[in-house]
């Protein structure tokens, strides 16, 4: 999976950690800022 997070929401590494714990293969992680 691709994990794209947001600073004012959930960061990319946090999404990736959850996804990995659920057995997903994370191929890309990024956090973006929309302002």
């Amino acid at each position: 999976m691709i994990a794209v997070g947001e600073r004012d929401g959930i960061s990319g590494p946090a999404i990736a950690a959850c996804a990995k714990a659920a057995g997903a293969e994370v191929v890309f992680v990024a956090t973006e800022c929309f302002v």
Partner: protein
Amino acid sequence: MPVPVVSASTQVLGHAPGLARHGSKPRRELPDNPGVEKRFLASLRAFDDAVAYPPHQAWLGTVHPRDLPERPWMSAGGTGASRFGPAGELMPEEELLGLLGILDGFELVTLSPEAADRAARALAEHPLAKRLDLDLLDRARGDAEAAAAAPGALPLHVGGDALAGAIRGAQDDDESLSAHVLLENLLGKATASLALLHLLEDNGVDPTSIEYVLSCGEEAIGDRYQRGGGNLAKAVAEVAGLTEASGADVKNFCAAPVPALVMASSLVAAGDDRHPAEDAGGSLAKLGMKFQGHLSHELPVLEDVLGGAAALVEADDGRSPIVRLDAVGRHKVAAGGSATQIMEALAIEPLARHGLAMTDVDDFATELHNPEITEPQGSGNVPDRNYKTMAALAARRGDIAREEIAAFVAERGMPGFAPTQGHLASSLCYLPHALDRLTTGDARKVLLLAKGSLFLGRMCQLSDGMSVLLERNEAEVRT
């Protein structure tokens, strides 16, 4: 130990529709899409519309953000609004280009004789005219078309598509000194200088009393051997006639203004510098950042203004709001990066340290980006998200009941009113209002809270943030 206070704060905007095409997003999107470019240029705002835009009036201090009219604000601007407000001014682009020419010490900027004349006439009537060397504008006079056609040069426009001048690079093979980078840096210098000059003029501050300047803008001043080396603070100090000052730049993405305020206050507390000033110029890169959303919603290009801000910190004068250096919130490396973890570090911990509830703070100033700018592009309402997170944490702590969450957001938060000028939108834009509320108003405590997206620089996955509590200057509060 001297107690630091913020004694003055100013805020400016520079209307720059003709320069909006040089923002990072338009610069990437427009050249290959002539149809989009045509719509972009046809959707730029006139100066009077920018002045009347209610969020800009909140920026200038004319109206408190909580007293803004209901949205949409695009159609709410009335006639009779002034470019000058209690906090500063919104400068028209002809004057802004003139300022650019005056502050350019390396003959990078060329202005057409007509543009230079217009700027000279307008700036001669400006309240800050006596603080500007208008004769320096003559250095910029030249053939705008020839200058714009030179290799590596960038055209400078006013309004939609009227050529008014050009800027050249300083060295052909140094990308840090390219025309585009130098335009960003010079505009940062111009807007920061404008704010600092207003700080002096509007508050009767002696320029020689300021001994240190901390600049917290986002521009990376330097050449290829030290991109981002700085020091814009001293360049701005020179413009403002601060002959006794030196300075340095504070970098921390959008969060930089709060650390800069804390550092300036620390200088006062250390007894070292009586009058440090903080200044921040605007960000050209962010002009037109969300223009696609605006065009798709039949809105004008709303990111057509550059911001600027300045503040003065000094030892306790018995009236100005106190900077509580013992109530600074820091987002530590181990704090975690979720929105709630960041907010716990910045909005709860510095209060809890002193046994304060979140309801002891009258106003929380956070990311105050104007939602009318961000929502059309799908970025949501940033301040509203922040305030709801704060309110939820307040409920979890037992500071408020769950059913009081909406009231907490409405009464202690506020609508976003800042253009997407990054660092300036990150709580610094509330400083003039905070000073009013903590002196002539009825607030006793205001928390400034700013966040920075360190991960954008690809050096770490972290974000950062800092908060600081401002407090009414009353003996009973201090003791």
